[in-house]
């Protein structure tokens, strides 16, 4: 977390912060699922992903 946000985050009162962190984590978890769900769709298609260099 960038220092500015960190400072802001540390100033939020505990009960609110707990609520926010649970809500934020839940949303991020759902977003993670959303992205991986999309990846599963994409990798089944014939379009090949770009690979910048063959090591």
């Amino acid at each position: 977390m960038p220092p500015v946000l960190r400072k802001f985050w540390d100033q939020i009162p505990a009960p609110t912060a707990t609520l926010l962190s649970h809500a934020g984590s839940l949303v991020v978890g759902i977003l993670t699922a959303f992205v991986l769900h999309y990846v599963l769709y994409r990798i089944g298609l014939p379009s090949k992903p770009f690979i910048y260099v063959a090591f």
Partner: protein
Amino acid sequence: MIFTTYWFFAFTALTLAVYWLLPVATLRWWFLAAACTVFHGHFAGPAGMAPIVVLMVITYVAGFSRQKWACLAAMILCALTLCFYKYALFFIGIVIEPLSSGFAAQLTDAAKKIMPGAPPLGISFFAFEFVHYLFDLRRGGEPIRHPVKFLLFSIFFPSLVAGPIKRYPQFLAALETGSRRLVAGNFADGLRRIAIGFAKKVAIADNLTFLIDHQQPQFAALGLFDRWVFLAMLAFRILLDFSGYSDIAIGVAKLFGVDLPENFNWPYLARNIQDFWQRWHISLSSWIRDYIYIPLGGSRHGPVRRVTNGLIAFGLCGLWHGPAWNFVIWGLYHGVGLALCATYEKIPGVGPAISGVFKREPTIGFVLTQIFVWLGWLVFFYPVAEALKMARLLFGL
């Protein structure tokens, strides 16, 4: 790309489940080593695995012996193997071809007969990690005695194909610590990181590729602003693609409790070229620093040697990206950039003045650095003549 296969997803999920169901860390290591072998075999095939296994055994034995000459011999073998599989045809083309095209053709045919269709999977990474291991042993490091741990260091599947290039002390420490118990935080961080990596790569970089491929043929016809937008797309495509790949590798390792080294740290915020190379492909640039630049003498023998060493190191860094001239030139371009960055302050009169400007207005350094780096991508991706033409057009010339 290995990460964009269902096999990879299924393998990771299954391996992860069994890994954490096993009751003790030792069993987890044995199981993970077996799983990594299966993974390597699946993607590399027997022909791709064989040279790696040979190198791995030789490296292990040489390290185990702790004989300096054995380590040196093994390092040379690793370097020669890499050169053979990846650069033999390129070297024949640049060294033999000008002398005798007939002999070059014969050599090319002979090399093609004994070489597989493609270099063994991840050969560049194996060679670099083995050389690092052997080099550090020669400097007094402790060898990895446990064969399973050595196997894990060698073919740990998340970093098998495109890094980050690991350092064995950190890797073993991370493995020892992380595999002791399942930590929900690791799991959550890993998943998050994997998602970020895929989003960068699949959702953004791949779409930038489409736009780049669409606009490149008509680059000359684009307006000046659009040409710079094109360059930005080129720059962000490679950043998002490669750092996305690293994110996935780091995230997957994290699911197993293992911390891999970071590979990118906001490189397009760098304020000078030196800063850029401490933020871009960090595991490679630090490898080049530790195992090429410093052994060559680094900055210890005066400015001429310093610049020469830098050019050699970055020429090789460029060549590492692929056996083609444009990669070498890209490396040398950065070598020159670093040399300028490191020496301009010593130019009498002008140097301190410029340095003063950069200190007062850091934004100028940032802008110049990004222009330099982004222009470099033209040489990286396109033939040199084409890249130069595009660079001229960017400045309306």
